[in-house]
């Protein structure tokens, strides 16, 4: 019996030890970090932001995924900087001038800006960055955005001039950190292992699959910013697990799945961001039956935007009528979302006119990387059944979706959200018939192509807007896709976090974020 008592005693001790260590644990955040700054006494200025996935590259010229820029735009800056309303302001350029013919852009470079390694930003670094992007340093061309650039030069130590071959009213948008971050020449060859920029936060460490750690840039050129000492982007792919981490206080900011918003409503700050993406159900428009515009229009009449918005997004979405979200302000053509109110009879009539009075069979191919897509597909199946169209759902991995649907164009129907860009041109250029890379719907419309060519030559903003609005009308009339919605991202954050900004694209701007009491 004695031995058994020892055994019990041992177990008891273990349990007691566990309980004691449980009581002494402090919730996981190190409290040692605190600034002596008066405004932010004793609240640790360290934030943990949950992000769905790893960045593809830390090198700002190599990265393409929006998820990467969501993080690394805190490290890098360009000549121009994005604003929350989709417009642009000066970044590393203090001011700029555009010549009357729209070909020459002259930038005056801000003085006294330092890279994270302490070096001053010089025109050589700017020259180097553009040369690297254009493949003029002996390396490969890294971007197509600058094909239209005739020359770049630095006439003096604070001036940088870019000359274009043809006027392009959208060119300034290629000069933010998203497209052309300014990186130090001295860091050549190490931009991915040890990224150095001029942004409010400096790179510390990247642990694949775990997190990306950034620290405060003490020499940041914007006086008094940033407030945070430490930013950690923690990678967690599972939305449901992420919200539990938020509740357990292990992360301070994460997106909240729409159906679970009520669970964090009282305990956390919620902010809604119009994603500026366009969620669409689309078709391969070169294959029957979807090569017939009447069939596409019938799809538009049959599929109910409100069914999808209510059941998939729990109402957190704005209906769309074309490939442009209200987040784009004046650029969006309003009212198009009412063009195809759900109307089963009209849809059936259109199908009959197109030669399919009894409907047809088809397949919708969706990616499995987000439940959203298969949820939408289910509603599409139900909606289309009513007009006699029999849809089979095929769920494939993201990699296969990209291969087969996006690049291979071997599909009938699919659903996807097209990520928002800051520029209306880059949003709408997916539908240009010569844009082989992005026009996976294989949409072709001569008027559309013409408008998109003309708009680049137009310098007057009001006229540009008129062009873009007409382009949106064409997409709606031609039913290039069924435009469903721009869903909102609901961000849940710790109640102490203030200063979050939302942009019409993915960017966790941490520069003005702080913890307050």
């Amino acid at each position: 019996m004695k031995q058994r008592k020892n055994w019990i005693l041992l177990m008891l001790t273990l349990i007691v030890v566990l309980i004691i260590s449980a009581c002494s644990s402090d919730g996981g955040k190190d409290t040692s970090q605190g600034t002596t700054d008066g405004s932010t006494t004793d609240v640790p200025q360290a934030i943990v932001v949950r992000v769905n996935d790893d960045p593809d590259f830390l090198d700002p010229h190599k990265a393409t995924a929006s998820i990467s820029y969501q993080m690394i735009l805190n490290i890098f800056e360009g000549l121009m900087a994005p604003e929350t309303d989709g417009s642009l302001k000066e970044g590393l350029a203090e001011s700029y001038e555009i010549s009357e013919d729209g070909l020459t852009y002259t930038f005056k470079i801000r003085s006294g800006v330092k890279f994270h390694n302490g070096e001053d930003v010089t025109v050589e670094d700017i020259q180097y960055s553009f040369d690297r992007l254009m493949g003029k340093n002996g390396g490969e061309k890294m971007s197509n955005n600058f094909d239209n650039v005739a020359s770049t030069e630095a006439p003096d130590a604070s001036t940088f001039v870019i000359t274009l071959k043809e006027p392009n009213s959208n060119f300034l948008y290629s000069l933010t950190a998203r497209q052309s971050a300014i990186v130090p020449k001295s860091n050549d060859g190490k931009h991915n292992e040890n990224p150095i920029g001029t942004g409010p936060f400096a790179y510390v460490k990247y642990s694949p699959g775990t997190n990306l750690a950034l620290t405060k840039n003490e020499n940041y050129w914007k006086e008094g910013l940033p407030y945070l000492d430490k930013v950690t982007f923690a990678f967690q792919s599972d939305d449901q697990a992420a919200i539990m981490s938020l509740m357990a206080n292990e992360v301070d900011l994460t997106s909240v799945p729409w159906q679970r918003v009520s669970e964090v409503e009282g305990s956390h700050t919620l902010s809604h961001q119009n994603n500026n993406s366009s969620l669409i159900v689309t078709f391969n428009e070169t294959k029957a039956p979807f090569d017939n515009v009447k069939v596409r229009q019938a799809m538009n009449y049959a599929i109910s935007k409100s069914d999808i918005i209510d059941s998939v997004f729990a109402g957190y979405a704005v209906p769309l009528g074309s490939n442009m979200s209200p987040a784009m302000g004046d650029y969006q053509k309003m009212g198009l979302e009412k063009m195809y109110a759900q109307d089963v009879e009209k849809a059936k009539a259109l199908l009959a006119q197109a030669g399919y009075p009894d409907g047809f069979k088809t397949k919708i191919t969706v990616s499995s990387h987000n439940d959203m897509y298969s949820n939408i597909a289910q509603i599409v199946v139900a909606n289309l059944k009513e007009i006699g169209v029999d849809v089979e759902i095929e769920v494939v991995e993201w990699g296969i979706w990209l291969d087969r649907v996006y690049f291979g164009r071997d599909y009938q129907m699919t659903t996807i959200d097209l990520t928002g860009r800051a520029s209306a041109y880059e949003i709408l250029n997916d539908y240009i018939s010569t844009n082989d890379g992005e026009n996976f719907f294989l949409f072709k419309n001569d008027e559309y192509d013409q408008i998109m060519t003309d708009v680049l030559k137009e310098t007057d903003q009001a006229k540009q807007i008129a062009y873009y609005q007409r382009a949106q009308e064409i997409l709606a009339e031609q039913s290039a896709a069924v435009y469903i919605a721009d869903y909102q991202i609901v961000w849940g954050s710790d109640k102490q976090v203030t200063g979050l900004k939302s942009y019409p694209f993915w960017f966790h701007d941490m520069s003005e974020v702080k913890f307050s009491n």
Partner: protein
Amino acid sequence: MMYIIRRFMLLITTILLVSMITFGVFQILPGDPVRTMLGTEADPTQIENLRSELGLDRPLYEQYSDWMKGLLTGELGNSIRFSMPVKDLLFDRLPVTMSLAGLTLIIVLTVSLPLGMFAARRQNKLIDVSLSTVTQIGMAVPSFWLGMMLILYVGMQFSFFKISGYIPWSQSVSGALSTLILPALTIAIPQIAVNFRYVRTAILEQIQLDYVRTIRSKGMSERNVMYKHVLKNSMIPILTVFGLIMAEVVAGTIIVEQVFSLPGIGQLLITAISNRDFPLVQGIVMYITVAVVVINFIVDILYSVLDPRIRLR
């Protein structure tokens, strides 16, 4: 000695076969690593640059033979998705998975052995029958569900437990335990159920044998009968099952690391597969193959330790 050499040869053949199968499967699988990584926003220039940079534009046999050459010199190549050496990625994550597997095995052993003996000695009594029923359920429970339940009803209730992430042992022992106990329990519970049943059966078989009656009639205490004779003699079948359980645990870490966001090998494997990151998948598959072969090797050696009549040939 001959035995060890033979074992080693077996390991090499296994690795060769496994790597060829993985490589073959990867050729059949649709999906492209570069496109998957760059997504819908890549422009064609970037895709092509990256592909030639990674050497993915070379013929298949060349890619495979290069990889094989690297393996022989101890190089596993570079990961496509993370642009860093596979070796670094593996070694970063090995401690997490090893700790998880180790802790799981300890839990399985310390619970299932005493429990199995306890139940065997009370054969067909109420407690034995109810334990058998409970373990039946334990075996049937899927581990991802169990993990979610533990997060909800244990992790969220007690601030000691972390429901995601990992804290290294070197940083804090209680921290490491706080991140590992729940995932270890998640893998352990179904395995405890399996092992419990084997222990119980093995001991029951021994108890009925003549030698037990003889030593009992000699007046040996019941404890000595159990520990010195019955348990020792039941160890051979238990060990066989235990070897299988170890392999199960290695596999179990893959799902559980995903549920608890533990940055271990399993999580890395899932990322690698969905990104078609061939060098990384090969590296991880090599690790799992070596681990399983080594476990079997250890089990074989333990046989001969437990029962000297068994010779390693």
